[in-house]
């Protein structure tokens, strides 16, 4: 299915005739200079592979301890959920819910929804619930904060290292890989799936 002929800059409402972008090319709005479109350099199979990798890494990141602390013969370690549960039981439930949403539920639903869409898009088909899934993806995207958490882990490590013996766990590496994968994905506009798939004939 060919791409629509027109594109509107989301930041200033200027209308342009759309043209195919070469590798590495970025379409910028001549009025407000916002990026309208980037060349989509990862094919659907490649994206699906990255999403599958992200899912595996996400599971590891949630199971494996992020870091362990040693203090006069005692050790203590935590996972993401350990932090969520601590915040809940220490009377900061709002923060607990925020962390659970932005670090677990939103990133996980992003991965699952995108994987579902891509699996069908491989044959140019639209998955059942395609438009609802695309709308959900659009609203969930800004609320996924794995990158921020990764930096938070590093700050917490440095703060703790003044008093404790700090041993990074497998989880920290998993979050680092996840951060890289998310960065790759965020340079990619999921909305191109509208152009790359067509309605399944009923």
């Amino acid at each position, binding site marked *: 299915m060919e791409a629509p002929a027109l594109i509107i800059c989301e930041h*200033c409402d200027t209308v342009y005739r759309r043209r195919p972008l070469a590798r590495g090319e970025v379409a910028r709005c001549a*009025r407000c200079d916002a990026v309208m479109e980037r060349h989509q350099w990862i094919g659907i199979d490649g994206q699906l592979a990255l999403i599958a990798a992200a899912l595996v890494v996400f599971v590891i990141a949630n199971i494996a301890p992020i870091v362990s602390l040693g203090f006069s013969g*005692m050790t203590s*370690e935590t996972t993401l959920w350990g932090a969520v549960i601590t915040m809940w039981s220490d009377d900061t439930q709002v923060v607990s819910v*925020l962390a659970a949403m932005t670090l677990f539920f939103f990133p996980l639903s992003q991965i699952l929804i995108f994987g579902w869409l891509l699996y069908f898009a491989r044959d140019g088909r639209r998955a059942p619930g395609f*438009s609802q899934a695309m709308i959900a993806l659009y609203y969930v995207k800004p609320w996924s904060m794995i990158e921020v958490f990764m930096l938070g882990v590093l*700050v917490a490590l440095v703060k703790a290292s003044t008093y404790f013996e700090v041993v990074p766990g497998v989880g920290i590496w998993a979050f680092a890989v996840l951060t890289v994968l998310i960065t790759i994905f965020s340079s990619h506009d999921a909305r191109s799936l509208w152009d790359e798939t067509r309605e399944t004939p009923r």
Partner: protein
Amino acid sequence: MSRLVRASDIGMVGCHVCRLVCAAPQPGEDAHCPRCGAGLHMRKRDSLARTWALLIAAALLYLPANIFPIMRTQSLFSRDDNTILSGVIELWRAGSADLAVIVFVASIVVPMMKFLVMGFLLVSIRRRSGWALRQRAKMYRVIELVGYWSMLDVFVVALLSALVHFKVLSRVEPLPGVIYFGLVVVLTMFAAMSFDPRLIWDNRDNDD
């Protein structure tokens, strides 16, 4: 270069979810995107009022977020409550100046910048200003991009509280300040989302 045409001038609107270019709905009409089904609006609904409301709420909560301590470090003989700013200072004194700067930027500079820039944009739109349009558009994009990094300190407190649990010898506990701070970040993110940058280019007294 040909003249740049705006969608609202020629009766078109882009779907905010899937970007399909559609015919603009009549005023009062409840139109939906023919492709994805999302509601079609020429501009985000009540953008200025909503953004003001969220921004003011966030600014009010920002006071307790900074005044109240966000974290308590307790050991056998001492108890130490830290606010956001004192946490930054402690990090600096401990010899991690680089991280202190990162936390300072994420927790203090970014939220302050959000209040100032969003407030400035809202006022300049109300005044139908035609001044520095491209720069103002750029300011909004930067704010939108960096906003969620303010959550950094909240995650640091959550991690330290979960990690430092050595019975009576040493403990870290979250304090209510961290709740206010988390809410500030969420509210400023909603404020940035409800702001419609196209308004910068609408209804200017002096045209480009």
